[in-house]
C-alpha cells in the first residue's frame, strides 16, 4: 500500500506558478553547511560555520587585496596560440574557445598592479576555472612580465597559485615556463624585491615545481591542496594508503615548506605586515 494517496489525478502546474529558486543563491560546503551566497561573499568566500575556504578566482582575490578593488590590469589581451595544433578528444583551439566563453577570461592568469593598504603591489593571480588553471605560454609570459613590471618599478610581487600544473596541450613549451618564470624570480631576488607566494587550493604539478615554492615567504590558506604529484598518482605508484591530511596546507607546513597558513579574512593584513617588516617600514594599521 502506498504511503500517500493521490486524490487528484493528473496535477499539472502551469509554468508561471512554478516556484523557481535561482541557481547560486546558496552554497553548500563539503561538510554540508549551507550558506547564503551574499553572506558567503561578505565573509571572504569562507563558509562561516566550518571555515571552509571556497575556491575563488582572480576577480575575488583582486577585490580582497586591492584597496577599493582598484587596479590596472597588465597584458590584458594576451591569448594562447596553438603552436602544436594539439588535438585530444577535442581540438586545443576549441577548448580555449570554450573556456573563454564559459569564464569570460582570456587565459589562466591575470596580472595587475594596484594599491594594497595604500602601497603598490603587483599580483599575478591564477584562475582554476580556465582549463584547470593550467600553465602554458600565456601564463608563463604574463607572470614573467608581471615580475618584470615589479622589478622595473621596485614594487613587491605576489603570485596567487591555483593550478593543476603545466598545460599538456602546449607540451614542452609549457614545461619551459617553469624555467622562464624562475629566471624572473631570480632577477627579483637579485634586486632584493620581496616576492610572496600564496598557494591556494589546488597548487600542484608544475606550479609547485617552480614559482609556488620559491617565495621569500610561501603561505597558504587553511585546507588547501598543495603537492607535486597528485594524491591519486602517489597512491597508485606506491600502493600505500595516504594519511588523511596528505598534501593539505597543514601537512605541507608541518614538513617545512610554508611559512604560515592564513585565513582569507586576515590575508591582506598579514601580507602587508610581512612587507612592512621585511622592508623595514613602519607597520601600516
Amino acid at each position: 500500500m502506498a504511503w500517500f494517496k493521490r486524490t487528484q489525478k493528473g496535477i499539472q502546474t502551469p509554468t508561471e506558478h512554478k516556484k523557481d529558486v535561482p541557481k547560486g543563491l546558496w552554497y553548500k560546503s563539503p561538510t554540508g553547511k549551507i550558506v547564503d551566497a551574499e553572506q558567503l561573499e561578505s565573509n571572504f568566500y569562507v563558509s562561516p560555520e566550518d571555515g571552509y575556504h571556497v575556491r575563488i578566482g582572480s576577480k575575488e582575490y583582486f577585490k580582497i587585496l586591492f584597496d577599493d578593488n582598484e587596479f590596472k590590469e597588465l597584458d590584458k589581451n594576451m591569448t594562447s596560440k596553438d603552436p602544436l595544433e594539439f588535438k585530444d578528444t577535442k581540438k586545443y583551439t576549441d577548448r580555449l574557445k570554450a573556456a573563454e566563453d564559459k569564464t569570460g577570461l582570456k587565459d589562466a592568469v591575470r596580472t595587475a598592479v594596484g594599491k594594497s593598504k595604500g602601497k603598490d603591489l603587483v599580483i599575478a593571480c591564477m584562475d582554476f576555472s580556465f582549463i584547470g588553471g593550467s600553465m602554458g605560454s600565456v601564463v608563463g609570459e604574463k607572470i614573467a612580465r608581471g615580475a618584470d613590471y615589479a622589478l622595473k618599478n621596485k614594487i613587491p610581487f605576489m603570485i596567487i597559485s591555483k593550478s593543476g600544473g603545466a598545460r599538456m596541450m602546449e607540451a614542452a613549451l609549457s614545461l619551459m615556463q617553469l624555467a622562464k618564470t624562475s629566471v624572473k624570480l631570480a632577477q627579483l631576488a637579485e634586486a632584493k624585491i620581496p616576492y610572496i607566494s600564496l598557494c591556494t587550493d589546488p597548487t600542484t604539478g608544475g606550479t609547485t615545481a617552480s614559482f609556488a615554492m620559491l617565495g621569500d615567504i610561501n603561505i597558504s590558506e587553511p585546507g588547501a591542496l598543495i603537492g607535486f604529484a597528485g594524491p591519486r598518482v602517489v597512491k597508485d605508484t606506491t600502493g600505500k594508503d595516504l594519511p588523511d591530511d596528505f598534501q593539505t596546507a597543514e601537512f605541507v607546513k608541518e614538513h617545512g615548506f610554508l611559512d604560515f597558513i592564513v585565513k582569507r579574512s586576515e590575508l591582506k593584513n598579514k601580507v602587508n605586515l610581512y612587507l612592512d617588516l621585511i622592508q623595514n617600514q613602519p607597520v601600516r594599521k
Partner: protein
Amino acid sequence: MEYLDFELPIKELEEQYEKACNIGSESEVDVTATCKQLEKKLKEKKKEIYKNLTAWQRVQLSRHPNRPYTLDYINAICGDTFLELHGDRNVKDDKAMIGGLGKIDDQSFMFIGQQKGYNTKTRQYRNFGMANPEGYRKALRLMKSAEKFGVPVVTFVDTPGAYPGMEAEERGQGEAIARNILEMTRLKVPIFVVIIGEGASGGALGIGVGDKVLMLENTWYSVISPESCSSILWRSWEYKEQAADALKLTAGDMKKQKLIDEIVKEPLGGAHSDREETFATVKKAIASSYDEFRNLSPTELVEKRMDKYLNMGVFKG
C-alpha cells in the same frame, strides 16, 4: 610559584609574612609591626641568597620552570608586530626552534631562538628546547632571508643541547650546526645573541655566533652541562656542583674569559620574579646593541666579528 632548594628559607619567610597579614585582617590584633619586621627580614634574606649564588644555583635558576622563554620575550618586546615564520624548506617545521620578524620601535629584526614548553604537553611538543637539524636549517634560512633584505638578527639561546636522536644524526645534526656557525661568522647584517637560559655547547653555538653576545645574569653557557661533565669526568652524576664551578660557566666567568660581551642584569630573585622588568631590560639591551653596530658597513661588521672569534683561545708559545 615554585621554589628551588636554596630558596626554601625565602619560602618560609613568605609564608610567615602571609600568615601574619592574614591574622591582621581577620582579627583586631595589630600586626603592622610584625609584618614590617618580616618584610624587612624577607628582603634581607633574598639579598643574602641571591647576591651569593653559587654556579650550580645559577644553573638551577636558568632552568627554573617559571623562567620566561623565547616566545615570551619576543611577544613582550614586539607586541602584535611579531610575524612567526615556519619551516626549513627541506623536511620539517622544528617546534624546538622558532623564528620570525618583529619590530623594536621602528626597526625590524629577525628573531630566532630555541623554545621550551611550560607544561608536560608543551615540553614534549617543543622537544624540551632541543632542536633537530631542521631547526638549525630553519634558523639559517631565516638568517639568510634577513641578510637579503638587510634586517638585523637577534637570537635567543635556551637549550639543554641539540637533540641527540638517531634521525637527527641521519639528517646531519653536526653538518647543520657547522653550517650555521660558518654562515653566522660572515652574515652581512648585525647579529645579537642573548643567552636567556641554558647555553649548552654546539646546540647553543649553532645560533650563537654574533657581533655582540649578551648573557642574562642567571644563565650558563659552556661546552657541556655540569651533570654530563660530572658523569664523564667524575664517573658519577653526584659531582654536578663541583663540575659547575670548574667549568666557569656563569655569565661573570664567561665575561672574564672574554667569550661573551655583556651581562644583562636580572631582577632580584631571577628573571621570572619580575618578568616585565626582565623583558624591558632585554629590549633595551638589544636596542642599544643595535645602536652600536648599525652604522658599520657590512665589510667592517664581518671583519670585526671575525676578529673577535679569531682572538678566542688561551695558549703558550
